């Protein structure tokens, strides 16, 4: 167990360093300046003298290697610098966004898992049936949908036409505001999970040990409960992990559409305002999250699959 973790971390650290370097280099050549004036429908005016001063203050005119060295040194001790825009520490800025982001992701993933895995399961248990056909057509359609388009449709249907749910925003952080963005974000992973689960369960149902289980005189239900579920889970959990890990990045579109105060909307806002420290911080967090989730998945494997636990 510890060995797995250690091996994992040994992999994670260089990746993280590389990401930091890459993100820094990418964004240090970004054209446009955070203090440019034409943002916000041309409503913001900027004094060029102030601009110069701020560039100096933020060290933007220093040579690149020097800035890079500084950035790495600071990042290593958890200091992501100060946002150009708000003048607050980036860690603080991001800290405010993590909880809404996590909430949205967990809700979206819960939706994806509950609906996707269930559909995939039902489809696999009755291959070729109506349930199978309908859910697989739904799944492949879900994968073919433009996310913002789908979100907008949800908004029109559930907020405007049916008036069941609020259309946007975070509200007081209650569940009602969470539902629509979570579905919009979750539909992609849901579709993928439905397909994966179906394939995985079909795989397992064709496995020899399931035939053994049947030869024991077990009811289908027990076959599924005792032997199919866990084995299918091993296959499904990879996809869950990959999806969950990249969800923070995927959420950009949904967060922008629904004005959800997560890391994704901070990122896109910061990109447009050229707030480099915030952009770098957001991407770093997104990558970190991905790596963390994948490490968790590895640990989950160890818990579920004895073959890994005993180091095969």
């Amino acid at each position, binding site marked *: 167990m510890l060995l797995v973790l250690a091996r994992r971390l040994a992999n994670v650290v260089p990746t993280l360093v590389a990401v930091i370097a890459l993100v820094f280099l990418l964004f240090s050549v970004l*054209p*446009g*300046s*955070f203090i*440019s*004036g*034409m*943002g*916000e*429908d*041309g*409503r*913001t*005016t*900027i*004094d*060029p*003298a*102030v*601009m110069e*001063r*701020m560039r100096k*203050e933020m060290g933007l005119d220093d040579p690149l290697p020097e800035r890079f060295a500084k950035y790495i040194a600071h990042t290593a001790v958890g200091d992501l610098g100060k946002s150009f*825009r*708000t*003048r*607050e520490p980036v860690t603080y*800025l991001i800290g*405010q*966004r993590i909880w*809404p982001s996590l909430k949205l992701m967990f809700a979206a993933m819960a939706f994806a898992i509950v609906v996707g895995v269930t559909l995939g399961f039902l489809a696999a248990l009755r291959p070729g049936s109506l349930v199978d056909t309908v859910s697989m057509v739904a799944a492949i359609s879900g994968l073919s949908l433009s996310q913002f388009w789908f979100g*907008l449709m949800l*908004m*029109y249907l559930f*907020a*405007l036409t049916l*008036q069941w749910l*609020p*259309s*946007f*925003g*975070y509200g007081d*952080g209650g569940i009602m505001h969470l539902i629509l963005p979570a579905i919009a974000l979750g539909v992609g992973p849901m579709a993928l999970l439905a397909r994966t689960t179906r394939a995985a369960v079909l795989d397992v149902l064709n496995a020899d040990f399931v035939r053994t289980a049947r030869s024991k005189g077990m009811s289908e239900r027990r076959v599924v409960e005792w032997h199919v579920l866990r084995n299918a889970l091993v296959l499904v959990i990879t996809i869950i992990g990959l999806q969950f890990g990249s969800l923070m990045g995927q959420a950009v579109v949904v*967060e*922008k*559409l*629904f*004005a*959800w*105060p*997560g890391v994704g*909307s*901070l990122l*896109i*806002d910061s990109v*447009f*305002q*050229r707030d480099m420290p915030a952009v770098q911080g957001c991407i770093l967090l997104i990558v970190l999250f991905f790596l963390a989730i994948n490490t968790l998945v590895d640990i989950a494997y160890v818990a579920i699959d004895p073959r890994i636990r005993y180091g095969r």
Partner: protein
Amino acid sequence: MPSDRFVQGEMLMRILVWSAVAAFALMGAGVADAQQAQTPRKGGVIRMTAPYAASFGSLDPQATPRAQDDIVNKAIHRTLYNWDTANSKLVLELAKSVSVSDDGLVYTYKLRDDAYFHNGRKMTADDIIYSYTRIMDGKKGYPGARYIRLIKGATDVEKGTAKEISGLRKIDDYTLEITITDRVDPGYYLFSGSTAILPKEEAEKPDFASHPVGLGPFKFKEHIPGSRVVMERFDKFYKPGKPYADRLEVLIMAEAAARDVAFRNKEIDTSILGPAQYVAYRADPQLAKGILEVPEMFTRSIQFNLADGGAKPFKDKRVRQAFNLAIDSDLIIKRLVKDKAYRAVSWLPPSSASFDKTMKPYAHDPEKAKKLLAEAGYPNGFEFELTTSQNESWGMPIVEAIMPMLAKVGIKIKPKLVEVTVLTEIAMKGEHQAYIGSSLTGPDSLATLRCYYSKTPRTACNYTGFSSPAFDKLLDEAGQTGDMAKRTDLLKQANNVLYDEAPVWFFNYNKAVLAHQPWIHGLQANPTEITHQYPEDIWVDATSPAK
């Protein structure tokens, strides 16, 4: 029918042009009448929207130059002057009276003695001195510095050679003397949100930006970054009986499509409308009742780069005039911008006192344009690169519409699409042949026209690199005179010079449109920025669904 359109346009112009004041009175009349019939209700919740970005930059009003942030700052903070929307002029906000010295450089203010900060302390002259000095902290690069530099000795503080601004003198707690360096109305400078007056004891706390304390009618309660700011009524606000509402929420909604749904779903009280939604809302009998229209002080134009880095043809005045003649601007405004704009005549908007009511915009005359081009030596036209953003009102869609029109006189456009943040930088560096954009053209007409003054550097705002001795002379004279009427007249002449020289394609002046719910009253038609409302005047009646 072109003639119909023309008549319509002319009528519209006449109404506007008559005087800005009359225009505003007209626009605001419906709202005002309805309000007078009812007494403002105390209590309730106001839910405004912040449409320009997905977050607020900073709630420290001095630290941000952004229109988005000022929506909140107008509620929490106060500046020495304010823009009186109803009368379209600057008024004293934190002072009761002011006297000006004969040379027009020394202003003595009698300050309010009833203005309290949200922490309960009364505002004095020291607070204003502190606030202005804070803005000039050279290490911080506060955006308001450009305004405070008007005060004598401010730049010394900025450079670090002085600790105090010599032009600020406290006479007693409620009397302040300000010495300025130019004969201009300091109100144009000291009404900007980034010159808000802050209490020292709060502003020096490290978390001030997340717990702002000010003089405004509402005090800060909660900020969910990226989502909303919630404020509560400040009971010791200096205007008696105000504010009306118990609570003010400013909800961030940058996505227009989502805002539309939210507004129709009655989740928000106000929403900024783009051209497409403007049409839809006007067509809906219910929604049409809640539309507030304002001619904003923004001029949309294509700025030609007349310097050596630009396209050579634009150096010829006739080419620039031909450009203006070749485009059917009225058609674009009517069909594409959906009448959510007023046809531009010259650079200054009609709300400016220096706007010449007798001037008519360039006509749509492709034949004359061809003739001018031929005279200038381009009988077969030419090709140039037009830098543009994606903005729906002054970006790519407009370019797409003028492309075929210009093609008819032989001018070919190669559009170069960039982001808005990059646009300004390109303009500042002069790396463009021409760009299409939007410029703030008020309320200070002198400052506005300085953008075509030959000594104004490109980085400041002379993006065209325009240089005309006649224009310079008019502007010099206008700056030197203390006679406001004379100044107005000189600026009018200068504006007309611009019309003739056509350093830009005069496209339109923006019509800002704010949709509002029927239960919200007292909204102001602010021509500098329609989302900037003084919330103490707004109230909601009992039909509001918000609790």
